[in-house]
């Protein structure tokens, strides 16, 4: 989390501020949001391996995705330094997230006639926007030490039209330094388990899924504050 010398809000005050951030997430498009204690966030070394075995098309595509980014060990340090978080999700209809050939469409990056690529991209963009918005609001409220986690690969969402991630090309200037954050999964956070722990129904959606097989999909984000 970013360093700061200001005195953070007292615990009770912080709880109230987090609650207002939770409401804000809902107001601006989250399907559900919960204030959570940082110690329920599961960091699991297996999660990052799911990006690499087999190699996901996003793996190695941006500075956040495995094999780069935060190791599980690093994320554990970040999580243990945090106190509370706002965990939220954006619901995605199964007709979009489990659409036939959606995997191929995403991998190719070519828009499909059904508009699923653009629609899914919009859902991802909402996650990044909400994370950014909540962190900004938290800073205004005096919570300066925050870390955001979104979903997917920031290169695909924020730099879709650019050929490469600048960070991976050796530049220290990210094109979207304020918006770009690691995804939960790229940092080794077990988003599925966390969602289940807060009582949300999360379905495993793989490449061979059909829209009728799952009730819905969801994309998740987290803003951790300490």
């Amino acid at each position: 989390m970013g360093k700061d010398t200001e005195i953070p809000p007292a615990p009770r005050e912080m709880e109230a501020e987090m609650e207002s951030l939770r409401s804000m997430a809902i107001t601006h498009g989250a399907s559900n949001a919960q204030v959570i204690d940082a110690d329920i966030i599961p960091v699991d070394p297996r999660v990052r391996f799911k990006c690499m075995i087999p190699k996901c098309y996003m793996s190695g595509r941006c500075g956040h995705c495995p094999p780069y980014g935060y190791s599980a060990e690093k994320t554990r340090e970040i999580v243990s330094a945090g106190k509370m978080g706002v965990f939220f999700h954006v619901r995605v209809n199964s007709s979009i997230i489990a659409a036939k050939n959606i995997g191929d469409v995403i991998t190719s990056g070519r828009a499909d006639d059904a508009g699923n690529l653009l629609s899914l991209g919009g859902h991802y963009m909402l996650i990044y926007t909400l994370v950014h918005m909540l962190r900004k609001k938290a800073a205004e409220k005096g919570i300066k030490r925050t870390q955001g986690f979104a979903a997917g690969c920031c290169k695909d969402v924020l730099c879709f039209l650019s050929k490469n991630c600048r960070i991976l090309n050796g530049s220290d200037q990210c094109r979207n330094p304020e918006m770009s954050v690691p995804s939960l999964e790229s940092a080794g956070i077990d988003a599925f388990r966390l969602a289940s722990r807060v009582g949300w129904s999360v379905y495993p959606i793989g490449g061979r899924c059909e829209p009728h097989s799952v009730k819905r999909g969801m994309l998740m984000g987290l803003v951790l504050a300490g």
Partner: protein
Amino acid sequence: MDFYEALKNGIFTQYTLSGFNRQGLGNMKPETFPVPEEIVPVSAETDPLVLENNVGRLAENAREMGAAKAAVISPEDIVFDESLPETMRADDALPSIHWPPEYPLDNLKDALMSFRRGIFLYIRAEPGMPDYGGGPIDDPVHRDCYRKLHEIVTAIESRSFYMGHYLAMGFAAGNCRSIFCADADRCIAMTRSKPCKEPYKSRPSMAAAGMDALQMFRNAGWPPDVLKGPLLAGMVMVA
């Protein structure tokens, strides 16, 4: 009956390394391995009884698909040998994303030890088949043997995923490039931003990932005559 009582009463002995004896689920072929009609949400914590039941079914599925033996294992049954990836690295005629795999920030051993149960299996090699190491594999029949092993491993991994064990992780044998991309100039997945061409089929070999499948085979007490040829063993850690 709770989990520990069931364990004490020997209900799970049918799933141990010493053997399996459950009724089959039909002639399930890898190509027809179904995605469940309705997928259920994942659980916050996996029920040990459900997990034992699931891994038993998965081992059975592996045998139905052609595994000569399939045993339920615990992470403690995995034998690690850190010298193996180095050996594979020297066998570099056909470098690929999985030969050997590189995980600079992540510890695979830690990840594997986080599982509770997995399946260890092998298929019989063709008589007279040599150990191809990193390839190339000139004989298409021999290539099909490796392909078959990968098919079983990926099918079991996929099945585990849809059972709610979404972190399932599979390993097979041989260099995926010499099996699936034999005619390609290079492994496309080694290029930044490019995915694997066969993500639903190819997995790292156990040896290249630092696991001593041979010793695990011996520890399982499986027939030693199999070791006259190359060992085509795979593993899927389920949950």
